[in-house]
């Protein structure tokens, strides 16, 4: 919808459509933004736990998990 269509005398429906569109855009933005903290969490888990797990050293893995949990 073009903004210039919202001139004095525009229909209520046109305003409502614009309001709905703003609400949709805000929801879309939230949807994109909320991945930030989750991606950071995944990166942190991988960084802290994957390396010890690749070592296949049971004790090192347990210690890494414990250390990680303590840091939360």
């Amino acid at each position, binding site marked *: 919808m073009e903004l210039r269509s919202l001139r004095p005398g525009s229909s209520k429906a046109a305003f409502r459509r614009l309001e709905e569109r703003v609400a949709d855009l805000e929801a879309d933005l*939230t949807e994109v933004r*909320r991945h930030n*903290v989750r991606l950071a*969490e*995944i990166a942190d*888990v991988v960084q802290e*736990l994957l390396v010890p797990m690749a070592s296949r050293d049971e004790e090192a893995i347990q210690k890494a998990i414990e250390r990680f949990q303590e*840091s*939360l």
Partner: protein
Amino acid sequence: MPHLLRVRRVDDSGLAVATLGDRPVDVCIDGRRVWTFWTQRDTTPVGSPVGRGPWPVRHAPWPKPLRRHLDGHARITVRDSATGSVSFDRDVALGSGQGPIRVQNKLGVDLGIDKSGRLVPTFAGRSDADIAALLDATDAVIEALRSAGVEPFVAYGTLLGAVREGAVLGHDSDADLGYVSRHTSPVDVARESFEIQRRLRLAGWQTSRYSGGSFKIYVTEAEVTRGLDVFGGFFDDGRLYLMGEIGTDFERDWIYPLGTAELDGRPMPVPARPEKLLEAMYGPSWRKPDPAFQFSTPTRTIRAFDDWFRGTQPGSRFWSKRAYVMANKPLRQTPSTLAKRAHALAVPLGAEVLDVGAGRGADSLWLARQGLSVTAYDYVTRALQPTQSLAEEESLELEVRHLNLTEWRSVFAEGARLAQRPRPRIVLARHVVDSTSGTGREALARLCSMALREGGSLLAEFHLPTGDEGREDVEWMVGRPNRDSFTTLLRDAGASRVDVRELKRDGRPTVNVVGEW
């Protein structure tokens, strides 16, 4: 200019004040500030001022947390927060009028209402030695943050105190630190914040995280434990975001290189142009004292912080408060229906029980007393401490562990730990689905998929939104828990069978779910 405030009355209900303007005023008991309110914003009109002077009379009710201390007599003073001019100064009897009024905690520490309306140990009643102890701790945390690779500065109320008064603000109750990351994306800012917290934990500090960009460091000085807040910030295309309240156009060289200001004679790092940051925090009138200041953070900034960093502890304030209120009340001695069912399922399987969202641990304790091995999880573990002590006394197999379903790192790490110790398990989740967010509900299903690979069941019970039944939802409800979407989550997480029953509990629509793995 004469002060435009008359205090008409101070009684058990609060203060009646006559005023035209809206200004912050301090209420002091025996010379010590316990509360600040705005004469318009925090009051309500009470009838006509006929015969009592030209100004309308307004009522300022005592804040609820303060009321239970107001029994006895004291010298009550009301003064303008900014100018110090006194409008009222008299001996007043409240409640029974017997004995002196003391606004103190059990340890005799003076308390005051902070800007969030909580009754906390403020700095006003602290000795120089106590404040020095807090400043020592602040110094140490600044050093620790530096060693973690960021350049911290004092922020918010602590910055205001340093720049405006050269001292900690009497009405303040904590210390705030901030830093501005070299990163520009919220993902990297959160990762850096995680790393900083990890380093501080390794160095022995007690910490707790409340968003992806900020956490608290606990420091005990004298007999008071205070939180030092560490707020992460970053620049994005000429805009400064500093966790908490700031999202504004800003210049990097207004922050770095840092300068110095004195806080009770101690040099503290401050932004290069502290007045610019203070204006962003408190508006252009930051030079005028206002102990009852309330942030009016733009919706755009709040939304950005909520989206990027928050949502990792829904309802925690409710449960922390409940833990405090319930601390001295006896624990429920009878098991819930769900716990009895968990017991019946666990015994033949030789399974251990994971009580997720254990609350005060009544079910956990009962199950452990039946001879089962139990782990009691919660994200507010304080309420579980008495149960843990009891279990230790009775040599029960009951372990209390922290688990936050809305932090993926917490769930993944605990899931990995459980996967390392494979055995059949029963997961008990009583009023978890209705007290966590959508992310938390997904995480509960994920935890089951990680913990139940050797077989077992999830037993969950939760209230549904009451909908049109004219009754309010339970106060802990987060979002709108839904029967079908939860059972879909369980199936997607590998449940081979899901049985659902709808019933009424305490007169509320309730869902009982058994998922088998």
